[in-house]
């Protein structure tokens, strides 16, 4: 049997502690699962291997945090926005992008998709992945 009982989530977060952002790449179809999971959501294969992501990505939508959609613990991220992220390797998911405020949004919204780069961010008790707006995107 190809499928393995594996603590994928723990391995993902342990790698963040080591400064590595890892996904799982499908050895059959080449798709990247990020964040990593047991099986490929593109072809269904369980023939997956760990692979470090480049961190290069694009942001395709911009939503700013507001009273309903923010929490006090997000304050150190400010300014930031939520949006649709596409990794260079192909995965698509919702993420946080630092460096976007209301004024910058007005410029960026006409330039979508915009370039962003993954970063490791310390939360209370564990590290996670956020993104930073690349330099020059607001020019």
């Amino acid at each position: 049997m190809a499928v393995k009982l594996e603590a994928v989530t723990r391995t993902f977060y342990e790698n963040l502690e080591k400064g590595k952002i890892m996904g799982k790449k499908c050895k059959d179809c080449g798709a990247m699962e990020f964040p990593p999971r047991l099986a490929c959501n593109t072809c269904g294969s369980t023939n997956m291997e760990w692979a470090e992501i480049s961190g290069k990505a694009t942001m395709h939508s911009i939503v700013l945090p507001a009273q309903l959609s923010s929490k006090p613990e997000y304050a150190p991220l400010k300014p930031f926005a939520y949006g649709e992220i596409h990794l260079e390797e192909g995965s698509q998911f919702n993420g946080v992008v630092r460096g976007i405020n209301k004024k910058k949004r007005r410029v960026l919204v006409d330039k979508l998709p915009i370039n962003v780069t993954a970063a490791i961010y310390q939360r209370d008790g564990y590290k996670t992945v956020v993104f930073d707006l690349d330099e020059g995107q607001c020019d």
Partner: protein
Amino acid sequence: MSITKVGKYMRSVSIIGVGCTPFMYTVDNPETDGLTEGEMFGYAALQAMEDAGVNPRDVDFYFHGQASPLAGSNYLTPNIQIGNWFGMKGKASIHHSEACCTGYYALEQAVNAVASGKYNCVLSGCVEFGDCNAVPNHPYKREKVPMEKFLQTTAWLYDRNYCRSMMAGQELIYDDAAEYYKRTNGLTDEEMDDTLCWMSINNRKNASKCELAIERKTYDEIAKEHGFNSAIEYMKSPFNPRTGDFLRMSGIEIKCDGAAAVLVCATDMIEELTHGKMQHKPIEVLGVGCGAYEATNPHFEIRATEEAVEQVYDVTGVKPEEIDIFYANDFIITSHLVAAEIAGYLPKGEGWKYICEGRTAYDGDKPINTNGGRTSFGHAHAASGLADLYECVHQMRGDCGERQVKKLPKTAMLRGYGGAQNICTYIIRTKED
């Protein structure tokens, strides 16, 4: 192209009875303070059976839906704990929970159970105390749930592995659909704001004529009380502040308590089961489409709705132009615009104009959420879907009085949404003699 092809039912199944409590704050009213799960579910269930003319002992099985049985009721097996309350003692049952989509999946579950041939007549009900939790170790007392406590439990809707830690999925629920709609259809900020406000105005206008709704004062009346010339002027004032990036306070659900139920039956056995006592036409469930995208996935509501809508049109052969009335679970009000457009009920990219012109209110040509939806009828989380079905069935029977839509609806689509995020879309049609 949908990712799942849905098969046709093994036999025809029809809705023969519906029941619904008022949506309310039970503990705030001396008459309703102390109501329990069995009483609320039981009332809706017995009303549905009475509506159909069916004796509880002739119902084969029941489904029970509740979004938050542990936090709200201190129940682990909520279907069993209400089992003696409505004449079905000893009948088998099962509990299901899809958060705000529970009441929509409630119909799907019951229809599947009958369509498979296992049962002939099945009850499906949902109950929720969205405004108050059970006081532990007391037989009936409940206490109000402060918003902070409510938000603690709604956080459990989201995936613990990644969604909560990456922070975006659970926060995008409020504004993702509005951002997507505005950007992809080229609306100005002002046009999007108007559209969101008008959805709330239309919902409230509908609820003002609905005796079971929790908020019945129109925004025209509220505006006048506050010295404004019009509802839209009030809606864009500080009295209706932005609480999201796009969303205003009026576009959020009113959480409350309620229960609702539906009784379904094999269509060819209706006469035998009701002994000719049913006073209305059955409504056939033509098909149900389902989709789900966990909240880490971009535009989860839109993608899952597209999937479910395609499935249901494909399996039923119904065309969008045949839909006479539309319901969407709109605890975030943008839902009813995006769902109606994906369903083809409103023209793509133009639906916002219909809304701003009032055409989607009960007296318009494209009625949506004639009971007032989640922002005015109220949101008793699990029960809301079946409350929408209750309203839709009564519209299709033509007995909604002042809020009866102009043209008697023959075919309806209802789109459920919730639980970060399930989608369940069904098409029902009045069965002619």
